């Protein structure tokens, strides 16, 4: 092999290395993110012959009995449903309020707009522990009993900021007022304009904001731990059980929530791919 041939192979090899390094690294990071989840799913099928079964990482045989008896742990099931109720209620209320505020911010110029924007940034720049601590102090000062209501207040508070920012980002590209004017010029009543023009425009943003609020609420731990009092949400219940041992049903419920998320993400991806194909077909 002569010198130029050798350098050409070397160059090709280097190019190949460059070509693969980045995707391999990306795959490794995504894999790393998913490792603990895979463990949770696998070990939700791990048997245990202890009197009070807890999750361990010694494989003791395959079983589905934790799935059959998913609601057999006292305290866990109510906490799980409380979290679901709280997340649903939070996402509905926060999405409604956040969307209205986002529309106001996108469509109008008004005094105090910058102030509101800064408050939204401040909510996000505040560590959750400070949110929780300040709310706890506030509730104690006003002697408001801690429980579902205080959890709801706290969750809506931090969700509003995220919903507003998400909806606003989705609306930023559209000239809503222009579209509405066009509809009215074409003879639509304000009612028809709202249902046929405004709502379809803001709906994708609302959906994204609502899902974000739901995810934030159902997973919230830090703020909740301050304002919950003796009420247990799903994450708070697990935290309380850490010292005595986690019953396997926690992994079962965790897997079920994850499965729901997966179905959702899968649908989303499928829709996205179909949109891609349609776009390509049109071209």
């Amino acid at each position, binding site marked *: 092999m002569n010198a130029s041939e050798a350098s050409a192979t070397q160059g090709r090899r280097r190019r190949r290395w460059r070509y693969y390094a980045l995707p391999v690294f990306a795959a490794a990071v995504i894999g790393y993110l998913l490792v603990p989840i895979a463990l949770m799913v696998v070990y939700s099928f791990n048997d245990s012959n202890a009197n009070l079964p807890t999750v361990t990482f010694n494989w003791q045989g395959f079983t589905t009995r934790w799935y059959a008896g998913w609601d057999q742990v006292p305290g866990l099931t109510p906490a799980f449903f409380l979290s679901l109720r709280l997340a649903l209620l939070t996402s509905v209320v926060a999405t409604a309020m956040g969307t209205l505020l986002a529309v106001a911010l996108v469509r109008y110029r008004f005094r105090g707009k910058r102030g509101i924007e800064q408050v939204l940034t401040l909510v996000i720049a505040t560590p959750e522990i400070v949110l929780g601590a300040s709310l706890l102090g506030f509730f104690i000062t006003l002697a408001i009993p801690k429980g579902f209501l205080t959890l709801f207040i706290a969750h809506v508070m931090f969700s509003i900021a995220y919903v507003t920012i998400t909806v606003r980002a989705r609306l930023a590209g559209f000239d809503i007022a222009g579209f509405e004017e066009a509809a009215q010029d074409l003879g639509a009543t304000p009612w028809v304009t709202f249902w046929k023009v405004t709502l379809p425009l803001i709906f994708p943003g609302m959906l994204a904001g609502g899902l974000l609020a739901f995810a934030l609420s159902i997973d919230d731990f830090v703020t909740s731990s301050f304002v919950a009092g003796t009420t247990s949400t799903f994450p708070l219940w697990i935290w309380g059980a850490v010292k005595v041992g986690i019953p396997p049903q926690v992994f079962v419920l965790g897997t079920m929530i*994850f499965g729901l998320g997966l179905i959702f993400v899968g649908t989303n991806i499928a829709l996205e791919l179909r949109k891609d194909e349609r776009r390509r077909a049109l071209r």
Partner: protein
Amino acid sequence: MHPRKRIAPYLLGSPAGLWLTLFFLVPLVTLLSLSLQTCDPLTLACRLTWHWQEFSASIADYHAQFVRSLLYAGSATAIDIVVSFPLAYWIAFRARRKSVFLLMLLLPFFVSFVIRTLLWQFILSDQGIVLGTLKAVRLLPENFHVLATGAAVVAGIAYNYLPFTVLPLFVALDRVDRRVVEAAHDLYATRAVAFVRVILPLAIPGLFAATLLTFVPAMGDFVNAAILGGTSNTMIGNIIQTQFLVFSDYPSGSALSALLMSFMLVGVLLYSRLLRSATIQEYL
């Protein structure tokens, strides 16, 4: 302007505005006032006594935890940025089906934060999957451990907040106008030069948002330190949580929270000056 149009934004914004004022701004003020009060340890009744000592006492007693939080949160954020940048770059510039990969990054969020941290406790435990195997093949000494060290806490924090770093970086990189990069190549910039002089400066706002979104929750986190760090690696979050929920020492907990909050604000301000960027809203 039509008068109805002038009040419209206020009508639309008032529910959210009132909620945020009442349950975010007012409690922050309450927090400050509570830190200057003296409370009766038995009845828990508090009076405003302008007791500034709470602040100096907090700094004197807990500066070690403050420094440790800074160190842990800072290292975790640095690790996340180093890991995220190539990933975000790959998704933005090379990957087909970007949305698929972005959604995959969000999958960990469908598993509760506490469960994720517990799973890391299992993974890193002394006889667990990783260490147990390495010890069985004698690659590690028998007494080697990761749990209850600062490294475990940093690893946990870095894992839990990684998606918060990737997403803003992706948004920033995805927005980089490809024509500008091509122009750089046309002007004989090598790939490396084009990256450093064109792509990197354009990604600065995303870097700012990513740092903020990772560092802020990491700084206040106490779950990772409690589950992975044992008793000798506590962060400021653990102290605040204990003061409030175990000892019911509200003035002390409030003073610590107020210190943390003011520290974050000053830090964010300085950092935004340093990077000449102050936007995080567009990158969520």
